[in-house]
């Protein structure tokens, strides 16, 4: 769940207050938002992605994380690491086209004795499309 709004990094845009699907934050005039309803956080990490200033830290634990120390977190370089891993930048989506999992080099066949999985795997090899032939003219 949400553990930290880093005051030093926060630009007080209140985007997290607006986009949090469980309404965890409260806006504070002239200051960083506060974590008002921590128990409601469901660890979707949307706030981290949508934060244009990389000012938020969400712990992946379902219970409050006792180990979180704001200064250690801020110094660790972990702020914004989820956005960087996905290819989001300053709160804007990006990076869906950068997925090495589709490269043939990484295609992993299941156990050949597992007939159902094997059949699904063979079918999935036909998922690739030649983009030119699939484009519709009205873009």
């Amino acid at each position, binding site marked *: 769940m949400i553990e930290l709004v880093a005051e030093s990094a926060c630009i007080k845009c209140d985007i997290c207050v*607006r*986009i*949090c*699907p*469980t*309404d965890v934050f409260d806006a504070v005039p002239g200051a960083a938002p506060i974590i008002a309803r921590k128990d*409601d*956080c*469901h*660890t*979707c*990490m*949307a706030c981290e*992605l*949508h934060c244009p200033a990389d000012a938020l830290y969400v*712990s*992946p*634990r*379902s*219970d409050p994380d006792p180990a979180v120390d704001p200064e250690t977190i801020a110094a660790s370089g*972990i702020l914004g*690491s*989820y956005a960087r*891993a*996905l290819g*989001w930048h300053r709160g804007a*989506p990006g*990076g*869906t*086209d*950068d*997925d*090495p*999992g*589709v*490269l*043939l*080099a*990484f295609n*992993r066949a*299941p156990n050949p004795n597992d007939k*159902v999985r094997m*059949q*699904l795997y*063979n*079918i*999935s090899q*036909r*998922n*690739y*499309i*030649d*983009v030119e032939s*699939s*484009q*519709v003219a*009205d*873009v």
Partner: protein
Amino acid sequence: MALELDPGSRLARRSYDTSLVADVLVIGGGPAGAWAALTATEAGARVVLVEKGYTGTAGPLSSANTGIYYIKPDDPIHRRGMVTARMPLAFGLADERWLERTLDQSYANLDAMANWGYKWPKNEAGQEYRARLRGPDTLAFLRRRLTYARVVLLDHSPALELLMSNGVAAGATGVNRQTGTTWCVRAAAVVLATGGTAFLSGVAGTRGNTGDGYLFAAEAGAQFSGMEFSSQYAPAPYGGVLSRGAHLEYATLFDNAGNEITRGRKTVEAIEGTGAAWAILDKAKDEATRAMLRKTHAHIFLHLERLGIDPFREKYRIDFRLEGTIRAVGGLAIDDDLATTVPGLFAAGDITSKENVVGAGPPGGGPAAAWALASGSWAGKSAAVFAKRLGPLAKARPVEPIGMTGLRTAKDRKSDLSIADVTASVQAEMIPFDRNYWRSGVNLAGSLERFGREWREISNGSLLGEAVDTRSAARDLMRSRETTAMLATARWINASALERTETRGLHRRSDFPDLDPAQEHRLLSGGLDDVWVRRVPATPAAAAIAS
């Protein structure tokens, strides 16, 4: 708090801060609701979409990737191959024609997203791979499209009840959880897309998924199907919340004694029998594969990293967490046009029964995502057509708000039970493996008796405490309805599970551990004060043979 400010009293007096009129009202802003709204708009309807959280981040898709059917309609090997591969996983309860129409609609929707600018990756040969969606990106992308299509979006606006006009759905009312204000949307047709429920098991992205739409539909008289196929659990790191297993294709799993086990039922048996299960991603041997996995499943590895786990080099403890009816099977019974049994009330996504497509399950992310997009499109189109047929009559008709338990109670008193009491009671039956992963007749009958008593208690007394301001009062009202919805849902699930005396797909009975070929039927259910279950033939073909 003063009566005139209390959102509950204001809803009872039909005093609304915001009153809107629409052709189609969509409740729920996940992928199914978004597609319903887009398709209805395309068909000429004026659409309002209300979401408890925020359309663009709400729902279980927000936290991770999903595979999705992208099956070429003109490639018979691809299309027939997928159908024949899936049917054995449906345990006799699916209908091939529904699977085929879902494949085709999902393909069309993904191509539409490509035309609108969603980007997919390409392989070395320059070919694109559209059979996957990244959750946070997809939701943000669909929100931009909804704005572009001029769909009116109400965020942080949980619906609390339906409006009905002579047995026909006519809109909904609710509150804004951030301001404490009340709203009302009158509409010619309503699409429910509020998702399934994990009974607040803690799985990432599911806090808003409390089965609210099931409750609204049941109050209007709708029926459910396949509620027993709801025992969906998925692997997550121990103490963590992200229930995704794609990366475990590269893992070896062990029980607590160090014996190798397989994924799924054996993992649950290991946790129950030996105290724990463990995983290590030892099949990702070289650094290139590990880097690929980190990138492709960034959300999963981020969770592991922040938990202090190096999954490639050390065994880490895993758990199975309840997803309930989320990406499972059971839900509202629907017809070919995604209409519920209530006129004017349509449904899409996880809230509907997916038996037509995946039978008894398990469906997995790919079919569930394809179903969200496809059923969203169909429900949106059907609702727009219904609205057009109704025409100006929609605005002229008298409407009644119909919310009862959890919103308005039969007697003006406080319930002996609190929101926390009822939640704990429901979770005690729905979350533990020995109650819900493996069900038994004795446990189910006992739980139904207790749930019945609790239902009567909260129908005759309010769950609400003393709120300090309108905002907290609005939130309390939402929590009260959420809790009521979870209790009602647990009753349809357990009543259906008691009736099905066999093990099939996502329904497991420890007292009937085998599949019984004589039970290749479906179970309808419904009712609030009196819960009922009824058998029907599985498919039209089966019905023809039976008659």
